[in-house]
Structures are given as structure tokens and as C-alpha cells.
């Protein structure tokens, strides 16, 4: 149950097991394709995602009236949906990644400190409790009210919303590690607190935190899209999936593709992230392994 650091062979087999899980592998592949497409957006996008044309609400190619010049059709302003989708996933993924990284990083430090210094533990955990009682959307509204709307505000809000959960998960993992003999031994040979935390505590907690963050990534994207949908997110003309879905809402009755294509993309990203996270937990969580 312990000593995962030097256990290299076991970890290799963990990845092998991950690749044996067909569904997870497929999810990983889809996610990889989406990430690659987003990264390569400037080269892949057939049009300028912000250029308006006089052909609004053109249907996608699978509709008879569709044109190959605009494979996914155009939105209400006559902009190419495929190009906006590529740039939009970029922003959405970046938003998810950054907020999870920032929130996860801070949360992990807070959780470890809480487990390491038992005296400040009750205080930190009560603060975390308070933070946990705010829904992420409400936090987003508050942050937007302070910093104004925009991607930065959303990232801040999502990062803040991620901190308490991660702190909790880290703390519970760290408390177990703190009870191990090697921590005691490390202290006995005179290692500093910083070294103990960095080299032993952090490395032993990271797998559970990582799994949690993978699962959290999907949620964060979903909440981010919701905030964007409410008009708190990306500023026009930048493309963001939640915002694109919101803009398509008005045309739902006769040009459903404007809203459904970005919505489906969000769905796909979140689903794949969750499946990969699930599979990672299965292979990395020692308790589930048995």
C-alpha cells in the first residue's frame, strides 16, 4: 500500500493495464485528437475564425444545402463554425488545464501543509469547508463582478473552486503517508521540513491527486462552459465552446447545428476526460487494484 516511489516495474504494468482497457484507450485517442487539432488550429482552420461573411446560418455539409467551403456550416454572423470550433477548443482546453493546474497546485500545497503541521490543520480545514460551500458558478459570478468578465476571471474562479477539493484529497492521502515509518526516519536523520514535504510527502500523494485532477478537468470544462454560456466568459469575438453554444441558442429551431456542434464537442471532451480519469484511478489506486 505504501512505497510507490521506487516501484518502477509496478508502474509500468499499470500503464500496460491502462492500454488494455479498450474504452479508456479510445477515450485517450479521441482526447489526443482534439488536443492536437486545438494545438494546430492556426494551420488546420480553413477560415479566419473571426471573419464575418454574408452567408449566415449555412447548414453543415451533411445537409443538402451545405457547402464544402464551410464543413460545419456558419454561425449567426456568417463565421465558419469549424474554424471557430478549433480555436474554441483551444481556449476551452487551456481554460480547463490552467485552472486545474493552478487550483491543483495550490490545493495540493494547502493539503500537505495541513497534514504536515497538525497545529494549523483544523484552521485550514475550516477555511476549506467554507470554500466548499460555495458552488463554482456562484464563485464565478463573484469573481467576474470583481475582475470583470473574461477568460482570466473564469480561470481564477475555476482555480479557486478547485482548491478546496484538491486540498481535501491531498490531506487525506498525506495523513496516511505521515503515519509511515520512512517519514519518521527522515525526520530522525535530520531532513528539513521542506525536503520531507517535497521528496517524500508530495511524491507519495501525487498519484491520487493526479487521478482526482483528471476527473476534475472534465468538471472544470463543463462549469467553464456554463459560465461562458451565461456571458461571463470569453469576450467576443474570441471563440469559446460554451459561448458558441449560447450564441446558437436563438437559432435552435431552424439552425440547430450552431448550438449542437459546440455542445457535442464539450460533451466529447468531458466524456473522454472522465473516462481516462476513471481508468487512471483503476490502475493507480492500490486499493481498487486488489
Amino acid at each position: 500500500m505504501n512505497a510507490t516511489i521506487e516501484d518502477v516495474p509496478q508502474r509500468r504494468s499499470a500503464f500496460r493495464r491502462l492500454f488494455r482497457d479498450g474504452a479508456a484507450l479510445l477515450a485517450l485517442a479521441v482526447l489526443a485528437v482534439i488536443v492536437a487539432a486545438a494545438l494546430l488550429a492556426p494551420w488546420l482552420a480553413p477560415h479566419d475564425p473571426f471573419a464575418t461573411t454574408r452567408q449566415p446560418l449555412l447548414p453543415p455539409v451533411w445537409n443538402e444545402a451545405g457547402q464544402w467551403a464551410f464543413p460545419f456550416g456558419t454561425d449567426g454572423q456568417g463565421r465558419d463554425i469549424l474554424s471557430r470550433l478549433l480555436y474554441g477548443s483551444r481556449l476551452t482546453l487551456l481554460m480547463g488545464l490552467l485552472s486545474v493546474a493552478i487550483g491543483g497546485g495550490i490545493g495540493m500545497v494547502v493539503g500537505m501543509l495541513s497534514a504536515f503541521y497538525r497545529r494549523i490543520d483544523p484552521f485550514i480545514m475550516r477555511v476549506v469547508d467554507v470554500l466548499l460551500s460555495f458552488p463554482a458558478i456562484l464563485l464565478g459570478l463573484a469573481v467576474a463582478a470583481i475582475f470583470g468578465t473574461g477568460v482570466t476571471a473564469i480561470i481564477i474562479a475555476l482555480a479557486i473552486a478547485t482548491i478546496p477539493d484538491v486540498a481535501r484529497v491531498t490531506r487525506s492521502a498525506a495523513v496516511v503517508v505521515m503515519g509511515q515509518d520512512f517519514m519518521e526516519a527522515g525526520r530522525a536523520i535530520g531532513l528539513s521540513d521542506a525536503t520531507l514535504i517535497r521528496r517524500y510527502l508530495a511524491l507519495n500523494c501525487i498519484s491520487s491527486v493526479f487521478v482526482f485532477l483528471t476527473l476534475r478537468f472534465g468538471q472544470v470544462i463543463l462549469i467553464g462552459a456554463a459560465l461562458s454560456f451565461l456571458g461571463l466568459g470569453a469576450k467576443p469575438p474570441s471563440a469559446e465552446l460554451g459561448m458558441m453554444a449560447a450564441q446558437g441558442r436563438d437559432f435552435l429551431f431552424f439552425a440547430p447545428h450552431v448550438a449542437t456542434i459546440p455542445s457535442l464537442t464539450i460533451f466529447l471532451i468531458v466524456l473522454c476526460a472522465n473516462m481516462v480519469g476513471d481508468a487512471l484511478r483503476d490502475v493507480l489506486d492500490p486499493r481498487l487494484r486488489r
Partner: protein
Amino acid sequence: MATTALKATARRLLAGGVCLAAAGLVAAPALAQSITVVREVDSDRYDPHRSTARAASEVLFMVADTLVSLDYDMQTVKPGLAERWEVSDDGKTYTFHLKDGVKFCDGKKMTAADVVYSLKRWIDPATKSPVAWRAGEVEDIVAVDDRTVEYRLKAPFSELLYQLTQSFAVVIDQATVEKLGGDFGVKGFNGTGPYCWVEWRPRNDLKLARNPDYNWGPPIYENTGPAQVEEIVWKIVPEENTRMAAVATGQSEITQYVPYSTLNTLRANPQLLVSQSDAAFWTYFAGFKIDREMVSEEAVRQAMVLAVDQDAIAENLYFGEVEPAHSYISQAALDWDKDLDDKLIRTDVEKAGKLLDEAGWKMESDGFRYKNGKKLSPVAYSFAGSTWQKLMEAMQGDLRKVGVDLDIQAFDATIAWGKMATQEFDVFGMSYPYISAGDALNLYFRSANTPTPNRMNWKDPETDELLDRGKAALDPETRAQAYGKVLEKVHQAAVWIPLYHEPMKLVQTKKLAPVKPHNIYGCGLYKGLDIKFQ
């Protein structure tokens, strides 16, 4: 799939409707009907002097009457509670002769004293009416006898009769106002309108019942007698597609609040009728704060006006249902200067680029223009919500083509008004209803009206003087001339980007006789005297 489900629901509802109609026919002939009007927003209250929302006026026109009424052409003043009136030669005294036999909803007789009370309450500083200025500079309003009211002005006010057709000038009952206090127009109302106040549930619905004794309707209607439906329910439905579904399924008989995108679908529906007013008296525009560095140059503003493609906006965003605007007020409005028709700025992207080049704003490799290291990126304050977001984005798209980076900042309506009263933006988006050139110009271009509604900071002594001259004019020619000059001035200075004029559109079931849309303050049903089942 969603459409089939919707159609099924529609069919079911329709079937239900037929049964109900059949039941109604058996139970009571002719008048036993109630109609539901769906709309987007409610008013905070229904006090004519304290509410300026269109939502309030819609109801006030129905529950109360004005001295004079406005014809469909938005130019002809017709009798209302006054059967006739005279204006003194100096233009300072208006004498109104009231109709006989007018009664309030509670049965009390309406007299000149009630008119005086209502108009005086409007201008009383204690009322704090935001629209008191619309009454002109009043010296006194007196009841000469029971049926004669004298309206005395300190200075002539050529707009007075038009202003008196608005819902702010309706006649209300003093006893009811005093009895209800702060709850007047919330818990109750007492007017002389074709409909009487029944009950208001804020943000839900407002019920009105027919006033059976009514026979003093304005002559613009064929029917000047009692209203022809028993009950009108104004129902709030915030979501536009839900409102569309409500008229399509017969839950609402008539409304002006359906999205433009669905009008063609609704037109194709054999049970529905879509009608439209001839002219449009609600204009959407983006204004420049002309003393801000970024947009202080006339050439820059002109270039931005040239860059925006109003025809494309009307076509792309509104499916051709609105009138692309190149003028700041409708060209059909009273006192519009016809000489300006050919001088209006029309879309010309090339010329816009040239103007910017000449003004020293050079295009850089990133596709935007810079001058002295500063990017041409004006800050635009806008309302959040689909209408303005779409409009702003369309403008942003057009301006990108000439190298202008419009920085859109959208705010929820609750804070947007406050934000737009500040000096921190270059461009703002706004829309407004008006009756005439004078009405629009006096509101937006008086230097005394800064910071709002003159958010442009247009401070020009000559404009003020011309506006005064127009306001005090004793004959229509002088007035038209003065206002025409102001129109020319502001159009030339490119202080607004006009976007579109919105015509009044009504969608109604064919079970109702065709209702003619009115443009007064954007209230398409006006007094509702022509609403009846066929």
C-alpha cells in the same frame, strides 16, 4: 425529434383549443373571451409618472386615457378625452374641451379637476418623475369649468400635443392615488381607459377587464365604444422561443415579442397572421463619446460609420425584418429633413480605410491600425443579452475589416445603465422610441442632458439654440427648419453609428380580427380597441 415533439404538443393544444372554443360557443356568445398577450419583461410599477418602461406604457394606454391621441401615422394628433382644443396665438395657452360623460372605472365622473390633478402630479417635484420635462415649462394648469382645462406655458412648446399623447399624461383618479399611496399602480389603479385594472402579480401576469361603459375612444379606431374582449392578460414569458411557441400553439392570441428569426415560420402557419407598421419608430444605434481621445477625430468616427454594413446586419441578424438605418431617426418621422436623404453616410469600406490612412492611423501586420504606438481599439459598453451581443459582434466584425479593434464590454442591464452614465467608454449601444425629430433631438443632443442621455458629450451652443428655437416655434415650418439644421449638424459630425429602425410587428391568431400595429412608445396594441374575435 424536438420538432416532432413540439408539433405533437401543438396538435394536442390545438385540439384542446377547439374543444374549448366549442364549449365557449355554447356557454356564452360574442363577448365571453379572454385573450393572453405574452411579453418579455414586466414593469417595476404602473404609476404613469414614475415608470418609463415600455412595459408600463403598454398597460397604461389600456387602463387610462390621454387628452389627445396619436394617429397611426405618428404625425396627426386626434381627440382623446378632449373632444377639441385651441392654442393661443402666442403658443403659450392650450385650452382643452373635455368630452361629456367620461367615467372612471369605479363609476365616478371624470371632470377637469381630475385632468388638472393628474398633469400637476406629473410635474410636481415631489413626484420625482423622470419624464416631467416632457410636459414643457408649465406656468399653471387650471380647470376653467368642469369640462374645460387651460394649460398655460411659460414659453411656447411645439411638441406639447405630441407629448400629451404619451402614457405619462394619462388621467388618473386622485382618491385612488391617495388611498393606495406607494401601492398605486402596484395593488390597484383607477383610470378611464377601455380596460380596468383587475390584478397584478409582478413578473407573472397582469389582468385587465373590459370597461363596459366606455364610449369615448379616440377616433383613430373604428370602434370607439367598449372594448370587444372581456379580459386581457399580459403574461411575462422571458424566453423568446417559449413566446414563439405560445403564439404558435394558441396559448397567446397576440404579441409583438417574438424573435425575428421565427417570423417566417410563423408566417407559414395558416392559423397565424403577422402584420407590420408602415414606418419604424424605434431606432438602434451606437454612439460615440466624442471627447474621448480615441474617437475625438471626426474622420475616425466617419470611417467607423462607413465600415459598418447596416444592410448586412439587417439581413444576417434580423432576417431582413428590420429597416437598415443610415439616419438617426426614421426618415418617416415628423420634421425629418428630406434634404439629408442623399447626404447620409452609406457603407463604403474602401473610403473608410482611406479616411483612417489620412488621419494617420496606419495598418500594421496584425491587421489593426496604430498611431504613435497606440492601437485603434475603442472600448464599447453594451448590454449583455442576445440582441446587443449580436449587434456588437456584427459591428466588431465589420470594423475589423478596416483595422479597428472594437473592445466590447457587456454588462447586465442592472449595472449597464450605471456604467453608461460614466465617462470611461468610447462607444455605447442604445435603442430608443420617439415620436418626432424634436422628441429625439431634445432628448439626446442638449448639452444640459449630459452625462445621460447625452452620453456623446455633444455640447454645442448652436445646437442648443436651434433646439430652443424648434421647441418654441409657433408654426410647423419654423420648427421643421430648426430641427432640420440640428439633424444635419449631428449627422455630419458622425456622432452615432445608426444601426436599424425597428418596425412594429404583431403576430396574432387568425381567430382574432386583424389588429393594426401602432408605433406609439413601442406599444403595438395601443388602446386595444380593435382586438376582437372574428
